[in-house]
């Protein structure tokens, strides 16, 4: 099985760092943003930022597949 490229893995790592590993840094009430405590606001923003990261990963993976050869994941 072809492994995912390093680039797309890095894209995938970004949400993990932001949402999971850095919990010490963002689990606080202040500063409130739009009246929402910071921890809630932070996690809600990553509902939108994660698709952005993964869209980057998607671009990398598809360009790699088409450049490589047409068997595998295409179609």
């Amino acid at each position, binding site marked *: 099985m072809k492994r995912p490229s390093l680039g797309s893995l890095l894209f995938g790592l970004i949400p*993990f760092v932001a949402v999971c590993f850095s919990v010490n840094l963002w689990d606080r009430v202040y500063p409130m943003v739009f009246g929402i405590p910071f921890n809630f606001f932070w996690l809600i923003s990553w509902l939108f930022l*994660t698709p952005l990261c993964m869209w980057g990963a998607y671009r990398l993976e598809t360009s790699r597949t088409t450049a490589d050869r047409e068997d595998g994941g295409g179609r």
Partner: protein
Amino acid sequence: MICGIVAVGAVVAFLARYHHKMDLEQWTVGGRGFGLVLVWLLMAGEIYTTYTFLGACGWAYSRGAPVLYILGYGPLMYVVSFFILPPIWEVGRKHKLQTQADFFQVRYDSPLLGAFVALVGVVCLVPYLQIQLTGLGLITEVASFGAIHRTPAIIIGFALVAAFVFVSGVRGVAWVSVIKDLLLLSAAVFVGIAIPRIYFGGIGGMFAALVRAKPNHLIMPGATTNLGHSWYLTTVLMVSLGFYMWPQYFAASFTARSGKVLRRNAVIMPLYGITVPLMLFVGLSAVLVLPGLSNGDLSLLLMVRKTFPPWFLGVIGGAGALTAMVTAAIQLLAGATLYAKNLVRPMLAPGMTDQQVANVAKVMVLVLTSGAVVLALYSSMSLVSLWLLGSAGVAQFFPGVVLGLFSRRVTTPGVFAGLVTGIVVALLFMLTGRDPYHGVNAGLIALGFNFGITGVVSLLTPMRIANFDEILPAAAGSRSGTSVSLT
């Protein structure tokens, strides 16, 4: 109202059967022809369950900030799926796989391992089924203002689920989840915005009031003593890695038309999670509006009942009931197929035809349903706790799947030993009440042991590379007769 919504759902399920001849493959994986939209709906329908709605609201009410873990693992599990589902789908297409246990059986060339995986999967599904039943009972009880008792409600609802699983299989389920998603999504958005607005003048006002009244509720460990940062970190990690190891979600990837559909799906799915914070807002409002509930899982329904006219409670109740039923149907389908195809056929009756397998599966639907009904009537765990229990179990499949996809060195005895170790460790911690262990999620500790043992035993046993090359799609050479055991 509830009855009307449920009835529409049932009709759609039965209609979905038309135009499709129902053989085993059609019944379990929809003939492998679902495109982006249907896969998205199917996966969302399965993933946003009773537990997400009643359970998330309930934990926001009773535990506070630790509930953020639901918001955390939501996007991350899709990140994981981006990398593992397309290759799983690829193996599935090549070898006509229908279940998760099929994957283990083919990859590791071991019907015994397949049967073991099926057994563990079915056992882990029972608490998840129980969640749906409990949710259904809660909804009916609250929405009928106590007129319908929980016991008959559970039994009637599940008779209906079992019936529609029987008749229409996965395609019917997918279409019903279209209806319930539309209902649930609009209901969640409306309730999540309206309730804080009515009581506090808005979401900001709600948080301001909560910060004044209970500042500790909003940062971890919230209202608990042991669900702090390390618990959050390890639980989010365990759940997001293990999520697609649930047999029904794993198998749902086989319904896709291509691996690309799954990948695109993984990119956009986190957006659907926007309903989760809205549910949390309702739970947090309830902390101030309805203090002192003994069962937090009731907070959403009771808030709706207190705030809106009865017909609206009916809409929410109907959407909730459909959700519970769709989810339960998927779980029954997965559990029953696993049992019949990977446990009974290879272990007890190798000569069974596909038709006979399908019949055994249908009997198993009834057995599983009754088992979960009994548990739902006698157990009192919170919805989220039940779910975490099953999650820790299925997460133990992760090393076998991921190493199986991407590594040549992993061996059958290695995976077997790792899986058994992981399950034993998880059980030891959980049955002795040591989860979380010093603030660390026991499922993740078990997963660590599992990985370690899988690696060590794999290195100590000889690898069988010849077989490996034929199994995995990257080495797409000549493959003659490897899939015989499955077709």
